[in-house]
Protein backbone atom coordinates (compact mmCIF):
# COMPACT_ATOMS: atom_id res chain seq x y z
CA UNK A 1 0.00 0.00 0.00
CA UNK A 2 1.44 3.36 -0.99
CA UNK A 3 1.62 6.35 1.34
CA UNK A 4 -0.99 8.13 -0.80
CA UNK A 5 -3.51 5.29 -0.45
CA UNK A 6 -2.88 5.04 3.30
CA UNK A 7 -3.40 8.80 3.66
CA UNK A 8 -6.75 8.61 1.83
CA UNK A 9 -7.88 5.68 4.00
CA UNK A 10 -7.01 7.62 7.16
CA UNK A 11 -8.94 10.64 5.87
CA UNK A 12 -11.96 8.37 5.24
CA UNK A 13 -11.65 7.04 8.81
CA UNK A 14 -11.57 10.62 10.12
CA UNK A 15 -14.67 11.41 8.02
CA UNK A 16 -16.52 8.44 9.53
CA UNK A 17 -15.55 9.54 13.05
CA UNK A 18 -16.75 13.07 12.28
CA UNK A 19 -20.03 11.61 10.98
CA UNK A 20 -20.45 9.63 14.22
CA UNK A 21 -19.67 12.78 16.22
CA UNK A 22 -22.20 14.79 14.17
CA UNK A 23 -24.92 12.22 14.78
CA UNK A 24 -24.07 11.89 18.49
CA UNK A 25 -24.01 15.67 19.01
CA UNK A 26 -27.49 15.96 17.47
CA UNK A 27 -28.90 13.89 20.36
CA UNK A 28 -27.15 15.85 23.14
CA UNK A 29 -29.00 18.62 24.98
CA UNK A 30 -26.84 21.40 23.57
CA UNK A 31 -29.60 24.00 23.20
CA UNK A 32 -28.89 26.87 20.86
CA UNK A 33 -25.37 25.60 20.16
CA UNK A 34 -26.69 22.41 18.50
CA UNK A 35 -27.00 23.68 14.91
CA UNK A 36 -23.64 25.45 15.19
CA UNK A 37 -21.92 22.26 16.32
CA UNK A 38 -23.60 20.32 13.49
CA UNK A 39 -22.37 22.81 10.90
CA UNK A 40 -18.87 23.11 12.38
CA UNK A 41 -18.53 19.31 12.16
CA UNK A 42 -19.92 19.41 8.58
CA UNK A 43 -17.34 22.11 7.76
CA UNK A 44 -14.65 19.81 9.20
CA UNK A 45 -15.78 17.03 6.85
CA UNK A 46 -15.87 19.48 3.94
CA UNK A 47 -12.35 20.65 4.80
CA UNK A 48 -11.01 17.10 4.73
CA UNK A 49 -12.77 16.38 1.41
CA UNK A 50 -11.46 19.60 -0.16
CA UNK A 51 -7.91 19.31 1.17
CA UNK A 52 -7.26 15.60 0.63
CA UNK A 53 -9.89 14.10 -1.71
CA UNK A 54 -10.09 17.13 -4.01
CA UNK A 55 -6.33 17.47 -3.63
CA UNK A 56 -6.25 21.16 -2.71
CA UNK A 57 -3.14 20.36 -0.68
CA UNK A 58 -1.26 19.76 -3.93
CA UNK A 59 -2.78 22.64 -5.92
CA UNK A 60 -1.30 26.03 -6.64
CA UNK A 61 -2.77 29.40 -5.73
CA UNK A 62 -4.94 29.70 -8.86
CA UNK A 63 -6.95 26.54 -8.13
CA UNK A 64 -7.29 27.37 -4.45
CA UNK A 65 -8.47 30.86 -5.33
CA UNK A 66 -11.12 29.53 -7.75
CA UNK A 67 -12.41 27.11 -5.10
CA UNK A 68 -12.19 29.57 -2.23
CA UNK A 69 -13.99 32.29 -4.20
CA UNK A 70 -17.10 30.10 -4.59
CA UNK A 71 -17.16 29.31 -0.88
CA UNK A 72 -16.58 32.95 0.04
CA UNK A 73 -19.50 34.17 -2.11
CA UNK A 74 -21.83 31.57 -0.59
CA UNK A 75 -20.78 32.74 2.87
CA UNK A 76 -21.45 36.37 1.86
CA UNK A 77 -24.89 35.40 0.58
CA UNK A 78 -25.80 33.46 3.72
CA UNK A 79 -24.47 36.22 6.02
CA UNK A 80 -26.42 38.96 4.23
CA UNK A 81 -29.66 36.94 4.12
CA UNK A 82 -29.18 35.97 7.76
CA UNK A 83 -28.58 39.60 8.73
CA UNK A 84 -31.84 40.55 6.98
CA UNK A 85 -34.03 37.98 8.77
CA UNK A 86 -32.33 38.39 12.15
CA UNK A 87 -32.82 42.15 12.23
CA UNK A 88 -36.38 42.39 10.87
CA UNK A 89 -37.91 42.34 14.35
CA UNK A 90 -35.70 45.22 15.53
CA UNK A 91 -37.46 48.55 16.10
CA UNK A 92 -36.82 50.72 13.09
Amino acid at each position, binding site marked *: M*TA*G*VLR*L*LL*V*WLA*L*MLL*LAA*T*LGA*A*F*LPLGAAK*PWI*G*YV*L*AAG*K*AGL*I*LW*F*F*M*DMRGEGG*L*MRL*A*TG*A*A*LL*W*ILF*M*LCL*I*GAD*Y*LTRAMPG
Partner: protein
Amino acid sequence: MAEQRALHEPFHEAERQEEADRLGMLVFLGSEAMLFGGIFAVAMALRLLHPQDYIAASSQMKLWHGTLNTAVLLTSSLMAALAVEAARGGSPRWAGRALWSAVALGLLFLGIKGHEYWLEYREGAIPGLANAHVGSAFEQLFMNLYCAATGLHALHLIGGMVLLAIAALKRSAREDRQAVLIGNVALYWHLVDLVWVFLYPTLYLAGAGQ
Protein backbone atom coordinates in the same frame (compact mmCIF):
# COMPACT_ATOMS: atom_id res chain seq x y z
CA MET B 1 2.14 3.40 -21.85
CA ALA B 2 -0.31 6.27 -21.83
CA GLU B 3 -1.03 7.74 -25.19
CA GLN B 4 -0.20 11.40 -25.74
CA ARG B 5 -3.30 13.55 -25.42
CA ALA B 6 -4.08 15.90 -28.30
CA LEU B 7 -3.36 19.57 -27.73
CA HIS B 8 -6.15 22.00 -28.51
CA GLU B 9 -5.88 25.66 -29.38
CA PRO B 10 -4.75 27.94 -27.77
CA PHE B 11 -2.48 25.57 -25.84
CA HIS B 12 1.02 24.64 -26.87
CA GLU B 13 1.90 22.67 -23.75
CA ALA B 14 0.04 19.70 -22.25
CA GLU B 15 0.69 21.04 -18.76
CA ARG B 16 -1.06 24.36 -19.44
CA GLN B 17 -3.97 22.56 -21.09
CA GLU B 18 -4.39 20.26 -18.08
CA GLU B 19 -4.27 23.24 -15.74
CA ALA B 20 -6.97 24.97 -17.80
CA ASP B 21 -9.10 21.78 -17.76
CA ARG B 22 -8.92 21.64 -13.99
CA LEU B 23 -9.53 25.35 -13.51
CA GLY B 24 -12.54 25.16 -15.85
CA MET B 25 -13.95 22.30 -13.79
CA LEU B 26 -13.43 24.16 -10.50
CA VAL B 27 -15.14 27.30 -11.85
CA PHE B 28 -18.06 25.13 -13.07
CA LEU B 29 -18.24 23.49 -9.64
CA GLY B 30 -18.27 26.98 -8.11
CA SER B 31 -21.42 27.76 -10.12
CA GLU B 32 -22.93 24.45 -8.98
CA ALA B 33 -22.12 25.34 -5.38
CA MET B 34 -23.92 28.67 -5.87
CA LEU B 35 -26.98 26.81 -7.19
CA PHE B 36 -27.14 24.69 -4.04
CA GLY B 37 -26.28 27.79 -2.00
CA GLY B 38 -29.73 29.13 -2.92
CA ILE B 39 -31.35 26.05 -1.40
CA PHE B 40 -29.30 26.42 1.79
CA ALA B 41 -30.30 30.09 1.93
CA VAL B 42 -33.99 29.09 1.76
CA ALA B 43 -33.45 26.52 4.53
CA MET B 44 -31.74 29.16 6.68
CA ALA B 45 -34.53 31.69 6.11
CA LEU B 46 -37.19 29.09 7.01
CA ARG B 47 -35.30 28.14 10.16
CA LEU B 48 -34.72 31.73 11.28
CA LEU B 49 -38.37 32.68 10.75
CA HIS B 50 -39.92 29.51 12.24
CA PRO B 51 -37.31 27.82 14.47
CA GLN B 52 -39.71 25.57 16.39
CA ASP B 53 -41.72 24.54 13.33
CA TYR B 54 -38.49 23.80 11.45
CA ILE B 55 -37.26 21.45 14.19
CA ALA B 56 -40.68 19.76 14.40
CA ALA B 57 -40.80 19.22 10.62
CA SER B 58 -37.19 17.97 10.54
CA SER B 59 -37.94 15.45 13.30
CA GLN B 60 -40.21 13.63 10.80
CA MET B 61 -37.22 12.88 8.54
CA LYS B 62 -35.86 9.34 8.27
CA LEU B 63 -32.66 10.04 10.22
CA TRP B 64 -31.11 6.59 9.75
CA HIS B 65 -31.64 6.64 5.99
CA GLY B 66 -29.92 10.03 5.87
CA THR B 67 -27.05 8.92 8.13
CA LEU B 68 -26.45 5.71 6.20
CA ASN B 69 -26.49 7.62 2.93
CA THR B 70 -23.92 10.10 4.30
CA ALA B 71 -21.59 7.19 5.12
CA VAL B 72 -22.20 5.64 1.68
CA LEU B 73 -21.44 8.88 -0.14
CA LEU B 74 -18.31 9.63 1.93
CA THR B 75 -17.07 6.12 1.09
CA SER B 76 -17.83 6.62 -2.61
CA SER B 77 -15.76 9.82 -2.46
CA LEU B 78 -12.90 7.76 -1.05
CA MET B 79 -13.24 5.43 -4.07
CA ALA B 80 -13.09 8.39 -6.49
CA ALA B 81 -9.97 9.72 -4.72
CA LEU B 82 -8.41 6.23 -4.83
CA ALA B 83 -9.13 6.05 -8.58
CA VAL B 84 -7.13 9.26 -9.11
CA GLU B 85 -4.33 7.94 -6.92
CA ALA B 86 -4.27 4.63 -8.86
CA ALA B 87 -4.25 6.35 -12.28
CA ARG B 88 -1.41 8.65 -11.18
CA GLY B 89 0.48 5.66 -9.80
CA GLY B 90 0.20 3.81 -13.12
CA SER B 91 -2.38 1.21 -12.03
CA PRO B 92 -5.17 1.53 -14.62
CA ARG B 93 -6.85 -1.69 -13.48
CA TRP B 94 -7.20 -0.41 -9.90
CA ALA B 95 -8.35 2.95 -11.20
CA GLY B 96 -11.16 1.18 -13.08
CA ARG B 97 -12.12 -0.91 -10.04
CA ALA B 98 -12.22 2.15 -7.79
CA LEU B 99 -14.36 4.06 -10.32
CA TRP B 100 -16.87 1.20 -10.61
CA SER B 101 -16.95 0.95 -6.79
CA ALA B 102 -17.87 4.63 -6.63
CA VAL B 103 -20.65 4.00 -9.20
CA ALA B 104 -21.92 1.02 -7.18
CA LEU B 105 -22.00 3.11 -4.00
CA GLY B 106 -23.84 5.83 -5.93
CA LEU B 107 -26.45 3.23 -6.90
CA LEU B 108 -26.67 2.11 -3.27
CA PHE B 109 -27.25 5.75 -2.27
CA LEU B 110 -30.08 6.02 -4.81
CA GLY B 111 -31.57 2.73 -3.56
CA ILE B 112 -31.61 3.98 0.05
CA LYS B 113 -32.97 7.35 -1.07
CA GLY B 114 -35.64 5.62 -3.16
CA HIS B 115 -36.68 3.53 -0.15
CA GLU B 116 -36.89 6.70 1.93
CA TYR B 117 -39.06 8.42 -0.72
CA TRP B 118 -41.26 5.31 -0.87
CA LEU B 119 -41.83 5.33 2.91
CA GLU B 120 -42.61 9.04 2.78
CA TYR B 121 -44.99 8.50 -0.12
CA ARG B 122 -46.83 5.78 1.84
CA GLU B 123 -47.10 8.16 4.81
CA GLY B 124 -48.56 10.80 2.49
CA ALA B 125 -45.67 13.12 3.32
CA ILE B 126 -44.74 14.07 -0.26
CA PRO B 127 -46.55 17.29 -1.20
CA GLY B 128 -48.47 17.47 -4.46
CA LEU B 129 -49.17 13.74 -4.76
CA ALA B 130 -52.70 12.29 -4.72
CA ASN B 131 -52.38 10.73 -1.25
CA ALA B 132 -50.60 13.72 0.33
CA HIS B 133 -51.88 14.79 3.72
CA VAL B 134 -49.07 17.02 4.92
CA GLY B 135 -49.92 18.59 8.29
CA SER B 136 -49.37 22.33 8.67
CA ALA B 137 -48.53 24.90 5.99
CA PHE B 138 -44.97 24.99 7.37
CA GLU B 139 -44.62 21.22 7.14
CA GLN B 140 -45.61 21.50 3.48
CA LEU B 141 -42.97 24.22 2.96
CA PHE B 142 -40.34 22.06 4.64
CA MET B 143 -41.27 19.02 2.55
CA ASN B 144 -41.13 21.16 -0.61
CA LEU B 145 -37.62 22.21 0.38
CA TYR B 146 -36.69 18.60 1.18
CA CYS B 147 -37.96 17.31 -2.18
CA ALA B 148 -36.30 20.14 -4.16
CA ALA B 149 -32.97 19.78 -2.32
CA THR B 150 -32.72 15.99 -2.37
CA GLY B 151 -34.20 15.77 -5.89
CA LEU B 152 -31.69 18.25 -7.31
CA HIS B 153 -28.92 16.44 -5.45
CA ALA B 154 -30.08 13.07 -6.83
CA LEU B 155 -30.02 14.47 -10.39
CA HIS B 156 -26.43 15.59 -9.84
CA LEU B 157 -25.61 12.19 -8.38
CA ILE B 158 -27.00 10.42 -11.47
CA GLY B 159 -24.98 12.78 -13.72
CA GLY B 160 -21.88 12.05 -11.65
CA MET B 161 -22.41 8.30 -11.94
CA VAL B 162 -22.64 8.59 -15.74
CA LEU B 163 -19.37 10.58 -15.77
CA LEU B 164 -17.66 8.05 -13.48
CA ALA B 165 -18.81 5.20 -15.74
CA ILE B 166 -17.54 7.01 -18.86
CA ALA B 167 -14.13 7.51 -17.18
CA ALA B 168 -14.08 3.84 -16.11
CA LEU B 169 -14.88 2.64 -19.63
CA LYS B 170 -12.26 4.83 -21.33
CA ARG B 171 -8.99 3.00 -21.42
CA SER B 172 -7.07 6.16 -22.33
CA ALA B 173 -8.46 7.84 -19.21
CA ARG B 174 -7.44 4.96 -16.95
CA GLU B 175 -3.95 4.87 -18.46
CA ASP B 176 -3.44 8.64 -18.24
CA ARG B 177 -0.78 9.19 -15.56
CA GLN B 178 -1.90 12.82 -15.24
CA ALA B 179 -5.46 11.55 -14.51
CA VAL B 180 -6.99 14.54 -16.32
CA LEU B 181 -10.42 13.02 -17.05
CA ILE B 182 -10.59 10.85 -13.92
CA GLY B 183 -9.34 13.77 -11.80
CA ASN B 184 -12.00 16.15 -13.12
CA VAL B 185 -14.80 13.58 -12.84
CA ALA B 186 -13.67 12.86 -9.27
CA LEU B 187 -13.82 16.60 -8.50
CA TYR B 188 -17.46 16.63 -9.65
CA TRP B 189 -18.22 13.57 -7.52
CA HIS B 190 -16.65 15.19 -4.45
CA LEU B 191 -18.88 18.24 -4.94
CA VAL B 192 -21.96 15.95 -4.93
CA ASP B 193 -20.59 14.57 -1.64
CA LEU B 194 -19.87 18.05 -0.22
CA VAL B 195 -23.43 19.20 -0.92
CA TRP B 196 -24.82 16.16 0.91
CA VAL B 197 -22.48 16.74 3.88
CA PHE B 198 -24.33 20.04 4.44
CA LEU B 199 -27.81 18.78 3.47
CA TYR B 200 -27.52 16.16 6.22
CA PRO B 201 -27.48 18.57 9.21
CA THR B 202 -29.84 20.97 7.41
CA LEU B 203 -32.63 18.47 6.72
CA TYR B 204 -32.09 15.49 9.01
CA LEU B 205 -30.25 16.58 12.16
CA ALA B 206 -32.21 19.74 13.00
CA GLY B 207 -34.99 17.64 14.51
CA ALA B 208 -32.93 14.70 15.80
CA GLY B 209 -33.60 13.72 19.41
CA GLN B 210 -36.92 15.59 19.57
